[in-house]
């Protein structure tokens, strides 16, 4: 059994979480572990345990959670959230933790790459002429290979790239 070092705890973390979607209900958790028992990831990898992560958050172990690899193992399948007898929005809570980790600069390369593609190109699989050729051959209508709207939705990306509208 590991010892929890509460000197590392941030007592305001629970309040910070409570102010955001998914973070407000965790204090209702009574540790029944229905979430862990329902989780397809916990079944294969003991590094990931939603009940434990909720407990860690309630203890204020912010730094440890947000720099961890394990929050990224959640498959967001909602099995836990649908079954939680206390109405904790566990999947939304996991998404919130991932969002907070990204804000602090901790994100797996794959997640960063998807973010860059989607906010840059408007799609995770941008389409090119070759795709349209294959679509046409299959009898499917052609689709646009570029997206004008995305720069207006995310103008901050443009500022970073030095282009001005």
């Amino acid at each position: 059994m590991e010892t929890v070092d509460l000197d590392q705890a941030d007592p305001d973390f629970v309040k910070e979480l409570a102010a955001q979607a998914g973070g407000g209900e965790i204090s209702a958790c009574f540790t029944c572990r229905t979430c862990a028992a329902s989780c397809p990831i916990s079944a294969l990898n003991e590094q990931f345990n939603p009940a434990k992560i909720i407990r860690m958050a309630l203890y204020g172990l912010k730094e440890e959670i947000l720099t961890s690899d394990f929050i990224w193992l959640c498959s967001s399948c909602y099995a836990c959230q649908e079954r939680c007898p206390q109405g904790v929005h566990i999947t939304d809570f996991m998404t919130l933790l991932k969002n907070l980790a990204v804000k602090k600069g901790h994100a797996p390369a794959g997640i960063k790459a998807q973010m860059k593609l989607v906010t840059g190109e408007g799609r995770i699989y941008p389409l090119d002429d070759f795709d349209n050729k294959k679509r046409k051959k299959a009898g499917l209508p052609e689709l646009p290979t570029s997206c004008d709207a995305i720069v207006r939705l995310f103008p901050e990306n443009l500022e970073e790239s030095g282009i001005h509208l």
Partner: protein
Amino acid sequence: MKYALFLGCTIPARARNYELSARNVAEKLGIELVDMAKFICCGFPIKAADMEASELLGAYNLALAEEQGLDICALCSSCTSALSETSHLLTWDEERKNRINERLESLGLQYGKGAKVKHFARVLFEEIGADQIQDQFQKDLSGLKIAVHYGCHYLKPSQVHDHFDDVEDPRSIDALVELTGAQVVDYPGKKRCCGGPVLPVDEKLAMAVTKEKLDDISASGADAICLVCPFCSVMYDGNQKSIEAEYNVSYNLPVLYLTQILGLAMGIDRKDLGLNMNVVKTKELLEKYA
């Protein structure tokens, strides 16, 4: 019946067999699917990175449909879920809606009431119904044993999908498959996730989740898997060979979209159902049953 067709990112690039079969089945059933050139990513892939950015993408797409006075029909379960979630949220959060509208303004768009979002399978189950679907059938698929994989986001989170099916005992896809005469076989872990969302983070773990279900379905005696999401198809169809190699097992389990199964029963040509594009070959299965 008319819907704005939401294809998302994965389907037009990687699941043309799904798109083709869905379009052809829709045509048989008189569902008009309107192509929307301006639709972009639904926001699902960036939920983990930035929920607000994800909502902005969702709201943009919903506002485009609203502008045309159309509800949305999506083929991908993750698109259906992400768009429904944004729509659900913006119904209740006026402040967030205003923030989003500030961004949409430069595109001349306005999010008002948004649009209703339904998965194609849900449209078939709820709005078309058994009689109208069976009216189009020309072939009896009796003898074919199908294991249905619901996946996660077709049904969950249940409140954004109006609880249209029971997440703990789903029936909608079973019922549609059974219309064809095919037998739906049960197997342990039917409700379990495909593992796909973990793929960009931990490929080995994602594949291990996928393998569990392939093991269970294989043991059930099913001839094929039926699913309704291109992400799930990447895991079960696209990655089946890699899993067989990695774990030294053999499945040879064809993975069909619901629309391909219904299309076969409707007598639609195999090529027009994109069956030649399925990774695990379907030839043997089709010779036997269709």
